[in-house]
């Protein structure tokens, strides 16, 4: 499979596991512990027989020894549909001319999709940019390549809402890769609804270093999504800006966590493989 510029990334994340944070619903055999107890060979526990249980699951040996009927419970494993929602608004095209935020967002999306796909999970993609691109979750081999092509063909521009994509994603695990500078409140509401419906929502907050500490020669700041917003960034204003921005980051993280959303802050100076491992690893620890 031609992987283009993602080859090194895919090599780096090979072998990483990304288990679901809790038991998943699903009947398709996968790698994640399922809420269902079935006929797999992985023994879990005995439970007294209740009317309606399948007689074939009664442990006849135990019945013979204890004269009581127990059914044998096993742990089923299922797939976990995962969807990547990538913010491709104009604010992601920063800083010029490298587009570090957009680069990191693409690499994280591909890396996480690769990890999920390696566990046979169907993965999908939704790009919220000047035009929307949606790839429904699929488990086929070519899905990663389709995602790469879609991401590479996209240039961040415009200002598109993320909330509709979060609400309509056909997946149980939704990863939103964004800088949170769009429709944050609406997205939070949509995420809260998904969490309530037992979906797992992860928000990867991309923050550029130049956003934390703009260059010294940046005296007149202009919002790329609202060019009429022009502010002077000098002296005390720079300090006030930094305080205001960090406060907003903390508040946003707190709001997301309060809604049951997993919040991951990602700086553009952090290597994408490291970030992928961090996201998957934290999930693994939580699941454990």
């Amino acid at each position, binding site marked *: 499979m031609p992987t283009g510029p993602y080859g090194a990334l895919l090599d780096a994340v090979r072998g990483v596991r990304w288990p679901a944070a809790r038991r998943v619903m699903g009947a398709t055999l996968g790698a994640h512990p399922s809420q269902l107890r079935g006929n797999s060979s992985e023994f879990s526990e005995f439970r007294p027989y209740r009317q309606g249980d399948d007689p074939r699951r009664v442990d006849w040996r135990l019945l013979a020894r204890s004269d009581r009927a127990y059914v044998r419970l096993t742990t089923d494993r299922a797939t976990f549909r995962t969807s990547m929602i990538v913010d491709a608004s104009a604010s992601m095209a920063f800083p010029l001319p490298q587009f570090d935020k957009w680069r990191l967002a693409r690499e994280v999306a591909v890396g996480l999709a690769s990890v999920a796909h390696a566990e046979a999970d169907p993965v999908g993609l939704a790009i919220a940019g000047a035009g929307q691109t949606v790839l429904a979750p699929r488990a086929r081999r070519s899905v990663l390549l389709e995602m790469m092509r879609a991401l590479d063909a996209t240039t961040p521009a415009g200002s598109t809402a993320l909330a509709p994509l979060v609400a309509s994603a056909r997946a149980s695990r939704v990863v939103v890769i964004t800088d949170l500078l769009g429709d944050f409140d609406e997205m939070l509401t949509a995420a809260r609804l998904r969490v309530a419906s037992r979906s797992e929502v992860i928000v990867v907050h991309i923050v550029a270093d130049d*956003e934390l500490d703009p260059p010294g020669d940046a005296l*007149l700041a*202009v*919002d790329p999504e609202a060019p009429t917003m*022009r*502010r*002077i960034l000098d002296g005390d204003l720079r300090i*006030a800006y930094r305080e205001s921005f960090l406060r*907003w980051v903390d508040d946003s993280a707190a709001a997301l966590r309060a809604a049951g959303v997993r919040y991951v802050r990602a700086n553009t100076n952090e290597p994408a493989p490291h970030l992928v491992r961090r996201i998957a690893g934290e999930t693994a620890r939580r699941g454990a």
Partner: protein
Amino acid sequence: MSFLAPWAFAIAGLAAAGMVILHLVARQRPAAYWLPTTRFIPDQRTLVSRAATRPRDLLLLALRVLLLLSVGAAFARPVLTPRRGAMARVVLIDRSHAVASVFDAVTRAKAATSDGVPATLIAFDSTPVVVAATSLDSLAKTSRTEAAGSLSAALVAARRASAALAERADSIQLVLVSPVAVSEIDSATRRLRAAWPGAIRIERVALLADSSAPWTLERRLTADDPLGPAMASAPRSGTITRLLRGAPTAADSTFVRDGGTAVRWDSTAASRPAAEGLAVGDEVIVAALGRRAVPNAERVVARWADGTAAATETRLGKGCLRDVGVTIPAAGDIALHPPFQRIVRALLAPCGLNVTEHPADSTTIAWLAGAATNAARADVLRGDDTRPSPLAPWLLGLAIVLALAELALRAKSQTEAA
């Protein structure tokens, strides 16, 4: 270098100073930086006004100041003023037919200019020509021209030359090297002389001596001959001219070959008179005259107004034979008119002596020299201030180039700022 309109340069200087002040206090907008988190910056004014100790955009300022100064200098009309001497000189050298020896005239002119004072030499007859000092030797070797001299034309040329010399000297001396014949003075001479604001140094040279030599007519004319009144006052000695009324005889040919002058002029031949213009040398009359055909010859002595020959002359041996085709009506008083009499004398004069010049009298010479002894002041002779400044077009061109450079630089700055 001086300015003909210095006020324009002063205005440009003030404008340039204002431009420097504007660059010191100009409101400035910093270059835009695209920052997605702009919303977290407290909203304050986006323009910064401040008086700087150093003007900003030094290159742009320099271009604008140079542009203003160039335009101002162009409108101030700068002129390059050469170093001025105390005196310059205009020398008028007469080479008309009234001058006995052009060589003598040139020698006198050389002597007049030997003191090293910058001089403009003008040789004149009826037309003035500026000659270089290095051409004087060549001029000395030439013979006088056949044209009559004109002091009026010479004075006009002197005035023009002095306007150029006035830029280099404080005073202009006018030297006239001429015999100052009466014929060289016309009605315009008096006014032109009055227009010269100083004295004229006159170096008189000899008048053509032959022109005043006496001559006489071999035949004594009767009182009723139309040519008689003209010759009545002529001297009775000197060279003899033979007047023929018919075809020349062998004796006449012998007379001519020996150096005499024979004039074949059947002035009383019958012909129908008509109003005609006749020119002999500088003399012109319009009168009722008759025409008679004359043979083609090597020299035309007189012409009718339509250009046809009225009198021709053929050299024969040492003398010449002249045919005059002018008939004079018996009735009328034209024979008594002085202009006609002068024409008659010119047509009957010996070969080569058909010009009669008389020197101007002492009163005329004194009037021409002027009462003052000083040279003319140069500032009076200098041209007016409306003459074009040679530097102005170049300065305006420079201003256009600077304006284009300023435009390009400003566009580049705006592009970079965006």
